[in-house]
């Protein structure tokens, strides 16, 4: 397993010019690695909708890569999006940081924690590429490949659970988040 910060540090080193959409626990952690106009803290959010939002963003600007920092709880809330995403050859890199629990609500286990194989689900839904990394070193070794080229791509990372976390706060109001992202997408 790897810590959330270890996993995100690898993303930061290999994200290239991609947009990064963070949701739930990643909203609190990602700004320490990057807080530019290409980073969107999706909070307040709608449950499980970060990959759907990313699809709309990717469709808006052909060729623009979008990384989604999703959790296993969020992924479970919108599994159908795997079938939706697989219809399109777009550079969407969906990272599921699987810690087996709802971190922001106090650490209750997610349904099927430890048994659900998100990479296999994505493959079955038609994703052309999926990855599953248990250790940081393996993630680091393959991140450049996983976060480039045609998509959609699903990457599952085994993340150490954390307890006692508070609900994260976005770095700025949503109106400002949207304005910053628009300046990138409409340039």
């Amino acid at each position, binding site marked *: 397993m790897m810590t959330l910060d270890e996993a995100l540090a690898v993303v930061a080193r290999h994200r290239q010019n991609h947009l990064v959409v963070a949701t739930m626990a990643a909203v609190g952690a990602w700004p320490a690695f990057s807080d530019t106009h290409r980073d969107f803290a999706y909070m*307040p*959010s*709608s*449950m*499980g*909708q*970060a*990959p*759907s*939002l*990313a*699809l*709309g*963003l*990717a*469709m*808006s*600007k052909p060729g623009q890569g979008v990384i989604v920092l999703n959790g296993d709880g969020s992924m479970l809330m*919108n599994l*159908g*999006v795997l*079938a*939706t995403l697989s*219809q399109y050859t777009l550079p969407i890199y969906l990272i599921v940081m699987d810690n087996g629990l709802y971190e922001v609500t106090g650490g209750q286990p997610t349904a099927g924690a430890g048994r659900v194989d998100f990479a296999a689900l994505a493959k079955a839904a038609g994703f052309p590429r999926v990855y599953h990394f248990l250790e940081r070193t393996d993630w680091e070794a393959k991140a450049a490949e996983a976060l480039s080229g045609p998509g959609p791509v699903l990457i599952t990372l085994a993340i150490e659970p954390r307890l006692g976390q508070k609900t994260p706060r976005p770095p700025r109001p*949503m*109106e400002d988040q*949207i304005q910053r*992202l*628009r300046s990138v*997408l*409409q340039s």
Partner: protein
Amino acid sequence: MFTGSDVANALRDAQFTHVVWIPDSTLGTWEAAFTSDPALRLVRVSREGEAFGVAAGLMIGGQRPAVILQCTGLFEAGDALRNVVHDLKLPLFMMVGVRGWLAHLKGATNDTCPRFVEPIMQAWQVPYQWLGENATAKDVHAALKTYRQHPQPLALLIAE
């Protein structure tokens, strides 16, 4: 009554770019009109909440999506709708097929779907207009033209 071609024409004239949808048996008859119109891109989603998420991304990216779905899916998608309209404050446009509305008006159905559509739209504070049994292509064009001139959240409720 209006046709799928009328809706596609009105969407195109109002400069919409995408239709994000899950059809019902009435809306589904419009599919050929959408897929054959080069100005519109049809986006098929798996569940209605997704439609609002995709539409949000498109709107942030400068596109003009229309979400088209049935009222049953609208009920399911409340959290996503709330987020897009009230948190992200985006000018969401949708067309909602209201299953059983015409029979409901005549007291001829036990379908509970039509009973809850207006109260739910009011509770979620989403402005709506009806396209009733006798609505024409002109009515669809007029509604979309108004939206285009004053973009703010709007649901067109289709009486089925």
